[in-house]
């Protein structure tokens, strides 16, 4: 079945530094990829989405590029802020008749002053 792999459980950075959170996926269907962000005691919210190969998508300073050749959708930001501290989920939508969204295990980003 479909799966999403996030290799880092926790990433700790000082504010102002760049960050990359890894995401790879497996699917037999045409993929839709997403990044969701969940702040403490809040619901997950969509941050980015893409289904277009090799096209960079950006939102709120974060960006990601879907690379179908390597089955990757890494999340990046050039300069993290304290407010970016949160749990980040990579997710995959099956472009099939089940409309199921599968989530990775999440990466917690902690930004220190």
């Amino acid at each position: 079945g479909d799966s999403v792999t996030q290799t880092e459980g926790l990433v700790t950075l000082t504010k102002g530094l760049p960050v990359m959170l890894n995401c790879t996926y497996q699917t037999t269907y045409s993929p839709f990829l997403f990044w969701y962000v969940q702040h403490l005691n809040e619901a997950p919210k969509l941050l980015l989405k893409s289904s277009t190969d090799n096209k960079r998508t950006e939102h709120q300073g974060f960006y990601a590029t879907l690379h179908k050749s390597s089955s990757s959708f890494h999340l990046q930001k050039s300069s993290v802020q304290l407010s970016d501290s949160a749990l980040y989920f990579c997710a995959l939508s099956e472009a099939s008749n089940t409309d199921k969204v599968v989530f990775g295990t999440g990466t917690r980003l902690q930004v220190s002053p």
Partner: protein
Amino acid sequence: ETAVFQTPNYHVTQVGNEVSFNCKQTLGHDTMYWYKQDSKKLLKIMFSYNNKQLIVNETVPRRFSPQSSDKAHLNLRIKSVEPEDSAVYLCASSPHWGGSTGQLYFGEGSKLTVL
């Protein structure tokens, strides 16, 4: 702005009791879901409904049963709770079904603690 409403937000109960969580979305979406987020923050889909019809039923214990009266409502009943049911239950909706963008709009969650 919240458009997926869940009640109750917190519930503490004892093993063997019955629990129900309610979810309503005001976005006019066709598809609704229940996800379980455990203590490690893993998000796992339990059920999805499209326009009141069950589409996805993952391998969950039979004590869990979803109920949908119309496409704006999806409730979750747990007939006899077990300690491993302690988790946050997240309701979500999405605009389309079948090869959609899959973007989910989540509610605030219903945290269940089973003593």
